[in-house]
């Protein structure tokens, strides 16, 4: 076949997609910073029982209010003489669990409904009204109600936070679906005999996924903060189980006397949230097939 066309050079993207994404992530310093912080947090949370020098609820009344840096207590102790370092490890664990669980719940419910709503207009009006309904419902009332019905616990906090995050997930997925269903490759797939399920799962979802991932990475730090709020108000994890939120509650009376008891869990929450955001942004850029050329 002779043509006047200039063949574009074969760019060898020989390695699979996952490796290409990883390579791009490695090149982004901010994403890597987020990744490092997250890794440390995840390793710390997973191996908390091995790493923590004390049990999270072990009170040692003789050693109350020891400032950070003291021998034996890396980050000091709180009003009951509990080791701050151990409690932050376990608290991070609780935060991560709630963050991930609630976002998984929001994804599991929000993405399918978003796809259906965006693709089939009759479903759209029903789903959109329902999301409006959830959006109009105050988060704390929902959490209080759920805690009243099912009791205050980590799981119920995760469910409450997950429910609140569903509408945002539906909306992001729906708007991406609306945008993508008019694309030529979708029309082309239909002209090639593709059915609705195939179009949704093979053409729309993979193209919508980076927006969904971005939404999820915004949602996880939101969920972590939400967990802190609920625990702070006594609607989440119950003392003496450690949570970054309950630690803040307990610290408020002593904030002037022992500022580290308030500052350290606060910093931990902030670092976690920041790390998720940085990593999420980096991941979004890395997942974009055209990202490498900008």
């Amino acid at each position, binding site marked *: *076949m*002779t*043509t*006047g*066309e*200039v*063949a*574009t050079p*074969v*760019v*060898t*993207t*020989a390695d699979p997609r996952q490796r290409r994404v990883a390579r791009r992530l490695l090149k982004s310093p901010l994403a890597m910073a987020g990744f490092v912080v997250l890794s440390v947090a995840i390793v710390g949370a997973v191996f908390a029982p091995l790493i923590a020098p004390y049990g999270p609820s072990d009170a040692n009344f003789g050693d109350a209010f020891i400032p950070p840096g003291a021998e034996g207590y890396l980050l000091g102790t709180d009003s009951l003489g509990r080791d701050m370092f151990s409690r932050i490890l376990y608290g991070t664990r609780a935060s991560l669990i709630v963050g991930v669980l609630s976002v998984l719940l929001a994804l599991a419910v929000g993405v399918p409904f978003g796809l259906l709503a965006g693709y089939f207009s009759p479903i759209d009006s029903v789903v959109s009204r329902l999301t409006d309904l959830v959006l109009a419902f105050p988060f704390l009332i929902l959490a209080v109600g759920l805690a009243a019905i099912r009791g205050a616990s980590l799981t119920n906090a995760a469910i409450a936070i997950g429910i609140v995050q569903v509408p945002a997930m539906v909306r992001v997925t729906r708007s991406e679906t609306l945008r993508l269903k008019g*694309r*030529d*490759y979708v*029309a*082309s*797939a*239909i*002209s*090639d*005999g*593709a*059915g609705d399920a195939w179009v949704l799962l*093979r*053409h729309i979802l*993979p*193209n919508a996924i980076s927006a969904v991932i971005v939404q999820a990475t915004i949602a996880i730090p939101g969920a972590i903060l939400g967990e802190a709020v609920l625990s702070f108000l006594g609607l989440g994890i119950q003392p003496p189980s450690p949570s970054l939120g309950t630690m803040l509650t307990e610290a408020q009376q002593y904030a002037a006397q022992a500022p580290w008891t308030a500052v350290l869990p606060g910093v931990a929450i902030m670092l976690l949230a920041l790390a998720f955001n940085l990593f999420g942004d980096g991941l979004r850029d890395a997942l974009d*097939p*055209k990202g490498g*050329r900008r």
Partner: protein
Amino acid sequence: MLSVRDLTVSFTGEEGVVCAVDRVSFDVRAGEVLSVVGESGCGKSVTAMALTRLLPPYARVTGSAVLDGVDLAAASPRTLRHVRGKDVAYVFQEPMSSLNPVFTLGRQVTEAVLAHEQVSRSTAEQRAVELLDLVGIPGARDRLRVYPHQLSGGMRQRVMIAMAVACNPRVLVADEPTTALDVTVQAGILDVLRDLRTRLGTAVVLITHDLGVVADVADRVVVMYAGRIVERGEVRELFRRPRHPYTKGLLGAVPNAEARERSGRLLEIPGLVPVLSEQPDACTFADRCPRASARCTEHEPPLENVAGHEVACWHPHTDDENATAGRPAERSSDA
């Protein structure tokens, strides 16, 4: 092989009914390139989409489109899904956006094969390489791992064609396949289409407004105007002796050396294609036609054989006119 009879498509919108295609009939035979020409808005693309009902649900399609004994116009959605891609495949105008950006070429072409054929993935991949080879993509095997954005428009259109012919369709509908491409790239794509026709025996329905393309690859031509077929015939015959004033006008609007010597100016057809809400009993071209008479606005001219090919006109150009003038009929200056 594909036999279209009285295909009519109308859309009901907020401003009433629009009749986009009006009683169109044509046949396409295996290994033949049938070209449908006409300016924008004359119903070419709608006709093509109507074949496998790729139209929005509010479109009303009547008439028949029989492919190997199956009437596609009356087929169930399920049957149509099997026909699309398998028996009737499409290539569209926009190669830049018709490939899914997140999957490699290999994956997309392989899936086009797997969509309608029960073969193993490795067989399908092997077939994908052959297909890319067939449409003239150099280094086909290496290209499997390439993403669409790494290819030029011409290369992408070749991939689209490869995907379209993946299941050896009986009919390939190419809707302005070269319009978005450079002229040099166009020639390459047309070569591919021509080559496929002879090698695979695929019938090609080539929709275009580019008469140069028609002259280049078509065997037979259907000229459409405002949803109706106004002239139909074998390509050389029709180009040499156009009967319908609209065809004449189209040919006169093509730049060529001869025309330049004669007048130095390209001819144009004044006005636009009308949007029709009903099927008037009149010639739809009458408003823009230099030869229109009272009869043209009162009765619809039938598509009749006039010495060599069919034309729907009350006042077709005669051989004498074509021979002596060699150019479209003069329009009065007040037109």
